């Protein structure tokens, strides 16, 4: 795949958004994280490599804003036993490539590789894979229209994934 050449300025802005988003998940702070998405924004973690769509095959996650809003509340709900434990994460994002760019609107599709460790319930779990972000210009800034998370072991037996990766 040929990546699109972008100005250093645009690339810096895109990188900054990906890093900011990751930093909200590192804490995790879902209130701030959700604000980075458009109203029709989605978060998708397929259950198989190259999964074509989230509706006709099972996924590990497929949240629109409504489910994100429920999850945000549930994450801090005092009665959620699975959330009794500290959750901390650390994301490293690299190999950022702009795969498609609309010169007029600035809307773009960006892929990146990530390594993420999640500490939860006395256990540290590594996750790795590729992000695909669809970013759109809203009021002179970028918002996330969709984030797709392809884990390299998405079709393996996995434990609880307690937080968005």
């Amino acid at each position: 795949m040929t990546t699109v050449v972008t100005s250093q300025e645009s690339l810096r802005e895109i990188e900054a958004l990906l890093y900011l988003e990751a930093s909200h998940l590192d804490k995790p702070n879902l209130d701030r994280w959700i604000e980075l998405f458009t109203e029709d924004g989605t978060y998708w973690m397929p259950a198989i490599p190259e999964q074509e769509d989230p509706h006709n095959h099972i996924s590990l996650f497929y949240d629109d804003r409504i489910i994100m809003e429920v999850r945000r509340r549930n994450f801090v709900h005092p009665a959620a036993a699975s959330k009794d434990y500290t959750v901390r994460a650390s994301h490293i994002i690299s190999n950022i490539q702009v795969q498609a760019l609309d010169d007029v609107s600035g809307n773009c599709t960006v892929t990146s590789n990530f390594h993420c460790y999640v500490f939860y319930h006395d256990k540290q779990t590594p996750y790795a894979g590729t992000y695909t972000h669809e970013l759109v210009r809203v009021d002179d800034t970028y918002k996330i229209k969709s984030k797709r998370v392809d884990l390299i072991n998405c079709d393996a037996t996995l434990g609880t994934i307690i937080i968005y990766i």
Partner: protein
Amino acid sequence: MSYSEEDIAALVQPTKVHRNVYTDPEVFDLEMDRIWKNSWIYIGHDSQVAEPGDYMTLNYGKYPVVMVRDNDSKVHVLHNRCGHKGAKVVDRPCGKNPAFRCCYHGWRYRLDGKLLGVPHLPGYEDTGFDKNDPQYSMQKLARYDSVRGFVFASMNPDAPDLRTWMGGAADVMDNLCDRAPEGEVEAAGGVLRYEHDCNWKMFIENLNDTMHPMIVHRSVVESAMDYIKTLPEDSPRRDEAEIIPPFGASYENFEESGITGFAHGHHYDGGKTSIHADYTLDPEYEAAMLKAYGKERMLDILSFNTHNTLYYPSLTIKSAVQNIRVVRPIAYNKTIIETWSFRLKGAPDSMLRRTLLYSRLINSNGSMVGPDDLTAYIRMQEGLKSQANDWVEMHRNFGRDEDLGDRVVGKGTSDLDMRTQYGAWREYMTGSVA
């Protein structure tokens, strides 16, 4: 310790079970030997091996097996072990081949497991080796059979016939398939495999434990309701808003749903009603059902509303949702739970999408329901290390369940499901099973 027959029998009392059934690796090994080898274990659905040569691999208890369709379209369940040095012959989760061939010395097998060829055979002449001796084939499991496409196998040659073994619990499997306008279902939309750090029985004992949802799932129900309140009244209907809130149903609601238990440990919750009873009926689906069955029969099928049905020990199904969960024990404190979804043949695509939505929303590793259940199991696995009390109690409604001969019925909040399972556990473990 080593268990005598008396020790094993004493682990289960009418209203309590000893903690060792969850925490002792030796009990686990005995269970794999006595329950899993003597019961019927769910293998897969025959739609997963739709054409000759299609296979899927899995573990039956501790043992590697493969389900395969042969050239006569018959489905077999074979030990996945080369007759030569014992290598697993096939190791992909699923695939297709005209015959099996071992990766090591190239021994080849027919799709029904019979040894076809051994390279450089003359070396075996006059050695006593007989190519036709079944021990050199990929051996068939002692028994395999299917009900409405759901394939089970048993290592016990004397196991009762599959439908007899299911007893009245077979009604739910029939209902699942009858919900298809064409009367058949097929596996669709893939699988989720979720590692549970707990004993396998904790998972199946939770299925029809109706005293836990309002506690364990209160957070997701309240979070959903809290958010729904902020939405405008004329917001479009969402399946999620029908799926999540019933997990917070009252004790009285669950009590009314009733539990029905059968021989061999099977049971279901619901019948007249369940937490799935109030789902909106898709008009296109209703039309297809009406055309296929007529009104009376359609209403008959759709009003049989169960929650979870357990075919002890390995399979649990949701007929009203069309998904199943399969129990694959690994160790006394480790179990893999698989979630599979099914398409109702002849139904609109929206029905499969709802099933997949349910599987993702409730059963996925990333869901807001399953992880809370799992947390409770993990805490039991930890807490039962305590020697404060050797027993786990199951008294609720003891003595008030009603024995109807071929089944026992009780209130939906009864521990009847626990007592049904442990009745079967004791029978399998002590060899007194009918």
